[in-house]
């Protein structure tokens, strides 16, 4: 082969790498996050810009972010989980009750997460076993689990000894300044890496995408679709449980009326990040960026002094615009 052709091949390869990068679903959300951050930094440089505000915003994204990791996997499989808000509230109540009962912090967290995983198991079993659409199943369990949480808490907030759990979400103390961000934030990033690896590099992840993309093909290729379905809801529940532990750490009480409507923010994060309600698509980095984008907008509006109703309108617009742009990108590509 002549040198000429080699070089042209190499530049072709470079160009195709650039094209491939542009096609990554998280590139759009990343641009949006940077743009929104820069915009508010310009509008309100003295309060919005700076490390303190940044860490505050990141901290506020943890609960939605972790729950959205599970939702990404579920939506890639072609499902949806409307019960995450109720699961998070139930988890805070279970953790608080357990701490009240005097068990160790670790055991209390395990109880909480196990409860959430069990809720996921029931969701998954109903979707796979009874062949009811996930929207309906989780609409039902949203209400059932909320009721359980209220019953367990006797419809009151539960004050529990924090037992150090609050440190998960607290800013690192001065002697551990090297930690930079709260433990909960690092845990979110770690879980995100695991979820991304599962999605891209495991058989389970491949089966999720295949089932969500075309269930018939998956069945034809010997994928055990019911097992995959049950498992993804268990994983989703598990992550919602971890999000619940974080919420408890944030609130330092068990609150059965907490996180109402959280599922909508979680679904919005997935969708902004390139996920599709019809399955087969979704990106873990995209989802985290989507969650971050919504926090930035909310915080930025507060800093600039825009009222709450403007924030809500802006967030709604962002969701629609993000999905529309994503559709254009897909068709263009």
């Amino acid at each position, binding site marked *: 082969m002549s040198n000429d052709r080699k070089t042209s091949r190499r530049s072709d390869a470079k160009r*195709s790498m650039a094209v*491939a990068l542009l096609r990554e679903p998280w590139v759009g959300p990343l641009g949006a996050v940077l743009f929104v951050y820069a915009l508010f930094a310009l509008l309100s440089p003295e309060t919005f810009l700076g490390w303190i505000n940044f860490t505050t915003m990141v901290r506020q994204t943890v609960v939605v972010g972790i729950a959205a990791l599970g939702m990404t996997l579920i939506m890639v499989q072609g499902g949806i989980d409307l019960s995450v808000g109720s699961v998070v509230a139930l988890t805070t109540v279970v953790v608080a009750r357990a701490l009240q009962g005097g068990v160790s912090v670790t055991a209390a967290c395990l109880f909480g997460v196990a409860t959430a995983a069990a809720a996921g198991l029931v969701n998954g079993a109903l979707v796979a076993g009874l062949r009811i659409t996930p929207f309906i199943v989780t609409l039902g369990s949203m209400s059932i689990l909320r009721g359980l949480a209220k019953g367990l808490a006797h419809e009151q907030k539960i004050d529990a000894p924090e037992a150090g759990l609050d440190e998960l979400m607290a800013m690192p103390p001065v002697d551990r300044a090297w930690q930079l961000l709260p433990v909960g934030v690092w845990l979110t990033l770690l879980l995100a890496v695991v979820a991304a690896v599962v999605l*891209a*590099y*495991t*058989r*389970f*992840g*491949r089966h999720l*995408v*295949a089932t969500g*993309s*075309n269930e*018939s*093909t*998956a*069945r*034809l*290729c*010997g*994928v*055990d679709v019911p097992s995959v379905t049950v498992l993804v809801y268990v994983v989703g529940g598990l992550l919602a449980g971890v999000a619940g532990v974080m919420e408890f750490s944030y609130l330092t009480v068990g609150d059965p009326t907490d996180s109402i409507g959280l599922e909508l923010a979680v679904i919005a994060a997935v969708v902004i990040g390139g996920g599709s309600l019809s399955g*087969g*698509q979704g990106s873990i980095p995209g989802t985290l960026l989507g969650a971050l984008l919504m926090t930035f907008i909310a915080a930025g509006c507060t800093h600039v002094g825009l009222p709450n109703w403007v924030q809500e309108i802006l967030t709604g617009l962002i969701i629609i615009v993000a999905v529309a742009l994503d559709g254009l990108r897909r068709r263009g590509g």
Partner: protein
Amino acid sequence: MSESVLVVRGLTKAFGGTCALDGVDLDVAAGEVHSVLGENGAGKSTLMKILSGSIQPDDGRVELVGQVHAPRSPDQARRAGVAIVPQEPELAPHLTVEENVVLGAEPTSWGFVRRAEMRERATRALAQVAHGGERIDPGRRASTLSPSERQRVVIARALAVAAPRVLILDEPTSSLTAADVEQLFAVIERLKGTGLSVLYVSHFLEEVMRIADRYTVLRDGRFAGTGAVAEATSDDLVRLMAGAVVERRQRRARAKAGDVVLSVRGLAGRPLPVEASFELRAGEVLGIAGLVGAGRTELLRAVFGLDAVTSGQVRVRAHAGPASPLRRLSQGVGLLSEDRKGEGLAGQLTIAENLTLSRRLGWGPFVSPARERRAAERFVEQLGIRCRDVGQRMTELSGGNQQKVALARLLHHDVDVLLLDEPTRGIDVRSRADVHASIDELVGRGKAVLVVSSYLPELFGVCDRIAVMCRGRLGEARPVGEMDEHSVLREAAGA
């Protein structure tokens, strides 16, 4: 012959590179039953879709009672006087019979449906399709209707919306029992008496010989002949449909068949197949011929464990027992789906992911994208799949290349028994030749291949033996040397 109601001249329609209709002529007289015949893919459906307004022709002219007939939509065609009853009649299952009959043309005042008028119009239309004393209750839910009743309701709908001059029945008997067919014929005779022309599209020659007055045969998108049914024999029609000269590819030398690897005894499903038995040996290609709807796909799906079985036995080598795709794949049996888009491939996944979906490459619970890429690149080269990169999404490939990826999945899984359902449907000539070459090569290596195809030259070109399926029953498999296309076509049409 009375005056022509429908005159078609030089009708032409191409899809992509393939010419589905090439200068077709057709004349239909008032009050006659005119049968349009042809093999699968001869262009009958395309012609009917043009007449009923679902697609528009590239060239040519249609006249309906002296007026130009160029409908842009099925609704326009219906209002102009051409109504179609499709092969799979569709009704809104949650609505009642009468609501379905007047659907899209409800009599209304200020947006409110005039129920009495709706009932009256529906009852009048239903009376025209009643059989003997038996009428369909207009208040029944459509979901409670039998296939035959559903079909009559669809015919009633065609009659109720506008007074049609031409009624198209597309394969009307494919899902009917023998008794239902008699009912339908009685209805057709009655409608014919009112001066309505019926275009009757069917594969079943004995039906055509009974009900039709005249016939027109299409072959490979061209006009092949027309005449009065009374002056033709079924052999004449078969000859017109199959053509005198059929291009035939060079057959490979027949390999020595080995042991029986797949044995099927008395297999029955719900509702198809009705009864199927065959044996497939290593190193042989068994073809299954038959008409669309004969139950060939259902047979393959039942064998592969995708559809439930009501009775019968499937053995893969020594193994019997319950079937599931996972179990079949582990036994070395693979299925190539006829429905590439809907089932065969996941469009949003890449070439490499689709190709390796059934057999995981990697370690423990992990998959290795690098190894997947390498495996995919090997098959891309081996099968001549044309793509930029194995990381491309499936939807970016042409049909022929998609089909090769689906076939490559079976090769990559290294199955010993390949169940190929319409392996070359809708793909270009070169890809078709590539697929045939792959089949030859596989059999040479001792694999067993089962091919379902509606394209007879293909079956005669690649198969060692052929069995014909008709209305859910599989006939005996015979060596291709003992068969010809006429005999297969006759058996498939149940003549």
